[in-house]
């Protein structure tokens, strides 16, 4: 069976599907209202924002139900909205595509988004700029939905940039903090590098396929020259690396934790950072044309999953541990997406379950911070399990889900990826397995430092449970973390067939590799207990000569590398340009001006104003002219 036959053709939108744009329109409109209405909306703005996201979720759920009822070959629904612009032979349409892949994303974005919106009502209750916060959140939801619902790469790019903007605005939301403002700028700039790749990919597509719609790309891919397939694949990978914080563009994600915790949960854990995975899966037809590009994706994924885990083991900031973990988990997804047809469904599967449990844990971390006076240093936590029951138990659900305790969400999704990795390549598989062990280790460390062990609180801190409006979303997400995997395990591959192709894969509950994985995870947990559970945890990070610890604490020296590779050469180039400008260009211009000035001083002396001098000059001129004429006659 060739590739093209497995791709289902899109059908025109009818009925409810024609209204898919409501999902985007509602949050966008509310964002505009909140931003424009001013203080009038302070009192009720957040309720309106929550309502907009819940409405989008309702629409998404409705569409999902209708898709379920459709025949398999009618599950890709395209609705053309309008023509954006047309230039010469090019016409760029704005259209939405609702298919099994995008509707899953839409449900994740709006579902988790709704929970996080509700949570934020409590979390941001005392912030003077809560209205603006909700406006940005809604803007993000609208942009993210645009990203996943677009039916061509150009509109996808609009959403891509939109989430970048929202991410920037929200990371530096507390702009009075210098670190937050700097982190926002850092994220924005590093994302630009990825966007450059995206743009190159889109331009290449326009040249090679005459358009950027998914349909055109999927149809044209089969005849694409291998060189171009590799190039476009690498360009797309660059874009994905930027957005998903993959090596080598990973450095911004840890700084992005300067933003409010719900933002970290929604944007930097559950949805936006997974856009790169979505992009790779969405472009799978292209990647399948180029083994090099696929290998690059696998390599990036593997390196990132180990790097993220490494960072997670040595940070003391609870949010940064979770951020490293996020990088690591997205590395798993990229790995799966790069493996090829066997991995697409698993990548999306892990993306969804990760969205549940990581959002759960981030919100849990936010709840802890809420109780600990916004302290993020885990060395000042300890024994919180007794004081924050809801938070502890929901976080515990996330914990067992991420390390992959059998029958939880992570168990299903991650084990599939590890297994697929082993089938793909032994070394990659071993790396993935090692990653699972490290994950268990650093999550156990986090649990010990935060909820177990002994109190190390700062004076005057009295931990307390968060209000209901925050704990209820935690409970919902905790439940999803536990059962989400089991619910989708036997279903998601078939469901994604129309979008990701038919590559049915064994999804047995227990396999030999699964058994090994469980053993490795158990070893990781045991090691975590051995290091952190037996003895009291020091309140100040002990000085360490262990190079692994040092490198991890310094976030793999990512900033240092960026500095020396990009920042310093750019500065040097800038200074050189300034010097050149000053010396050469300005020198030339100024020199010319000075030359003319000096000449003027000389020539000015000729302009005496004496009519007799002029008469003399004129006579001389006439003489010279006559002499020249006569000489030319003679010659």
């Amino acid at each position, binding site marked *: 069976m060739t590739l093209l036959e497995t791709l289902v053709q899109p059908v025109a939108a009818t009925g409810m599907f024609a209204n898919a744009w409501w999902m985007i329109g509602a949050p966008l409109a509310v964002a505009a209202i909140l931003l424009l209405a001013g203080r009038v909306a302070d009192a009720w703005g957040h309720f309106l924002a929550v309502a907009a996201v819940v409405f989008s979720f309702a629409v998404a759920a409705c569409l999902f139900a209708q898709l379920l009822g459709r025949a398999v070959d009618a599950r890709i629904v395209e609705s053309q909205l309008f023509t954006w612009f047309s230039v010469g032979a090019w016409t760029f349409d704005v259209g939405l595509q609702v298919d099994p892949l995008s509707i899953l994303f839409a449900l994740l974005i709006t579902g988790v988004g709704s929970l996080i919106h509700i949570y934020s009502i409590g979390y941001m209750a005392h912030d003077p700029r809560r209205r603006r916060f909700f406006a940005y959140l809604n803007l993000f939801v609208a942009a993210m939905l645009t990203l996943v619902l677009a039916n061509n790469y150009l509109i996808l790019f609009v959403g891509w940039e939109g989430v970048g903007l929202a991410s920037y605005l929200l990371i530096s939301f507390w702009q009075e903090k210098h670190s937050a403002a700097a982190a926002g700028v850092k994220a924005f700039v590093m994302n630009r590098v990825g966007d450059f790749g995206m743009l190159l990919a889109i331009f290449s597509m326009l040249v090679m396929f005459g358009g950027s719609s998914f349909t055109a790309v999927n149809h044209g891919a089969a005849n694409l020259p291998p060189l171009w397939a590799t190039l476009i694949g690498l360009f797309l990978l660059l874009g994905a690396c930027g957005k998903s914080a993959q090596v080598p563009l990973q450095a911004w994600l840890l700084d992005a934790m300067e933003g409010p915790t719900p933002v970290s949960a929604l944007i930097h854990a559950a949805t936006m950072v997974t856009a790169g995975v979505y992009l790779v899966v969405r472009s799978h037809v292209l990647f399948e044309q180029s083994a090099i590009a696929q290998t690059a994706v696998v390599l990036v994924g593997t390196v990132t999953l180990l790097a993220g885990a490494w960072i997670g083991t040595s940070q003391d900031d609870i949010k940064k541990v979770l951020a490293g973990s996020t990088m690591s988990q997205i590395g798993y997804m990229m790995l799966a997406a790069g493996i090829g047809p066997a991995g697409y469904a698993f990548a999306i599967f892990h993306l969804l379950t990760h969205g549940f449990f990581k959002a759960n844990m981030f919100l849990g971390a936010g709840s802890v911070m809420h109780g600990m006076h916004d302290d993020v240093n885990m060395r000042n936590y300890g024994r919180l399990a007794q004081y924050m029951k809801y938070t502890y138990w929901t976080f515990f659900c996330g914990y067992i889900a991420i390390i992959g305790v059998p029958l939880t969400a992570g168990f299903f999704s991650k084990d599939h990826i590890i297994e697929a990795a082993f089938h793909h390549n032994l070394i990659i598989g071993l790396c993935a397995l090692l990653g699972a062990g490290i994950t268990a280790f650093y999550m156990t460390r986090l649990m010990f430092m935060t909820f177990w062990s002994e109190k190390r609180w700062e004076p005057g801190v009295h931990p307390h449970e968060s209000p209901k409006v925050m704990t209820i979303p935690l409970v919902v997400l905790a439940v999803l973390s536990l059962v989400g995997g089991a619910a989708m395990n036997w279903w998601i591959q078939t469901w994604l067939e129309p979008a990701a192709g038919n590559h049915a894969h064994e999804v047995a509950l227990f396999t030999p590799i699964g058994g090994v994985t469980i053993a490795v995870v158990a070893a990781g947990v045991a090691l975590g207990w051995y290091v952190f559970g037996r003895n009291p945890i020091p309140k100040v990070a002990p000085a360490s000569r262990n190079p692994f610890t040092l490198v991890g604490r310094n976030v793999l020296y990512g900033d240092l590398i960026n500095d020396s590779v990009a920042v310093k050469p750019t500065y040097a180039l800038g200074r050189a340009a300034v010097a050149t400008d000053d010396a050469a260009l300005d020198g030339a211009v100024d020199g010319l001006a000075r030359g003319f000035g000096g000449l003027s001083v000389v020539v000015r002396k000729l302009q005496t*104003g*004496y009519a007799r001098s002029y008469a003399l000059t004129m*006579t001389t001129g006439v003489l010279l002219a006559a002499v020249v004429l006569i000489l030319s006659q003679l010659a």
Partner: protein
Amino acid sequence: MNPENMLMLAAILFAIGGMGVMLRRNALVAFMCVELMLNAANLALVAAALMHGRLDGQVASFFVMVVAAAEVVVGLAIIVTIYRTRRTTSVDDANLLNL
């Protein structure tokens, strides 16, 4: 009689007139030197008329006289005006290129 002599004389008179314009500071004298140059040109024209046996040269000379008359009228008026404001007829004193 050779008209060439007339041309030589005209050339000499013209050169002397030019010298006067360049050397004399008195505006009136300089002006008279201009008249001398015009007269030299007239002489050349009349000599040419004799040479070619046609009266056009004389007519041209006549026109030169008319233009010279007009020039003198305006020029002297200007000199008088300058004298009235500056109490001098030296061309060197009028070196600011304005009144």
